[in-house]
């Protein structure tokens, strides 16, 4: 197998290397990619969308349709993970003993199968493999998570002027929650942002994007033509594009954040939503 793989890989590589000889030089400013479509973006983006970050302008406006489906991909990935992994019936778990920790004292209870779970708020359910208390990590992450979140929101909001945008911001926001789940435990993270919330947010994020496009449709312009939204925003068409991009980025951020968190929840707890990694 290895030899076959190696041979086919080398063959493939040889063909590709052969093909590379005909490429325009690396970094050539006169090569076709540099001279055909992209100059329009570079020269007109600010005038047409008033967004200095050309990548954002192209991403969310000129090729906004791509990005819509990119978000849909993320959404469907999250949905797929949920679909594939989520365990709905607890009886799939073979040893059905349950562990509970009494919060004030740290005493751990083991409930045999059939036993009644303690009802008090003072108990928290834990996994057979729970995370031991680690004060340093817990405290530090607690302190920095708000800043990470703030930064994530900043990235979303400033996608027009600096690198970043909805996706990056969304991932950072998602990571902050993942970090929370890592440093505390998964149940607490789920308590903060439950499954329903992440699912609905995830769909809602994509919906904001697609809905903004559809709104343009209803306003009589083409799909995703944010210029049509100018009456709603009360600004001129170019500014409307800029604001439309912002709305869209917010949608992307929301969707990506929830998607990442949701995927993590399912993957880390194998669909059981107990304590994760």
């Amino acid at each position, binding site marked *: 197998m290895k030899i076959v793989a190696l041979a086919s890989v080398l063959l493939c590589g040889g063909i590709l290397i052969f093909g590379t000889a005909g490429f325009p030089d690396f*970094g050539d400013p006169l090569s076709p990619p540099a001279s055909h479509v992209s100059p329009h973006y570079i020269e007109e983006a600010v005038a047409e969308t008033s967004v200095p*970050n050309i*990548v*954002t302008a192209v*991403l969310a406006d000129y090729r906004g349709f791509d990005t819509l489906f990119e978000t849909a991909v993320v959404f469907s990935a999250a949905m797929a993970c949920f679909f594939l992994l989520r365990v709905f019936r607890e009886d799939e778990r073979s040893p059905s003993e349950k562990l509970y920790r009494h919060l004030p004292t740290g005493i751990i209870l083991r409930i045999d199968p059939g036993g009644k779970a303690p009802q008090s708020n003072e108990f928290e359910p834990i996994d057979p493999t729970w995370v031991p208390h680690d004060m340093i990590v817990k405290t530090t992450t607690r302190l920095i998570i708000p800043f990470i979140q703030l930064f994530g929101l900043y*990235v979303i909001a400033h996608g027009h002027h600096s*690198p*970043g*945008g909805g*996706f*990056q911001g969304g*991932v*950072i926001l*998602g*990571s902050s929650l*993942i970090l929370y789940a*890592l440093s505390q435990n998964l149940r607490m993270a789920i308590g903060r942002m439950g499954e329903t919330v992440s699912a609905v947010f995830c769909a809602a994020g994509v919906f904001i994007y697609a809905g903004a496009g559809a709104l343009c449709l209803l306003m009589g312009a083409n799909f995703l033509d944010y210029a049509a939204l100018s009456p709603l925003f009360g600004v001129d068409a170019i500014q409307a594009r800029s604001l439309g991009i912002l709305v869209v980025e917010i949608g992307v951020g929301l969707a990506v954040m929830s998607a*990442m968190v949701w*995927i*993590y929840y399912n*993957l*880390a707890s*194998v669909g059981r939503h107990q304590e*994760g*990694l």
Partner: protein
Amino acid sequence: MSWPMDMLILVFVIISGIGAITVRDLLGAAILFGAYSFLMCILWAIMGAVDVAFTEASVGAGVSTVLFVAAVFRTTRRTRD
């Protein structure tokens, strides 16, 4: 953009890529894959693709490595190749 940096980092990227698929321990592979995407991130930055670099940074560091570790945690570290 500076080509020496570009080359250097590219070589590192390749090394860490090879490392990620050869190491006989999946957790190690996941961590090396993290290194791979860190280096990729620098590479993008050096090539002037700031947005790509940003995405790679956030994805590579924040999500994909964590997902790998989670998957390895939920499965096994054992590998025979």
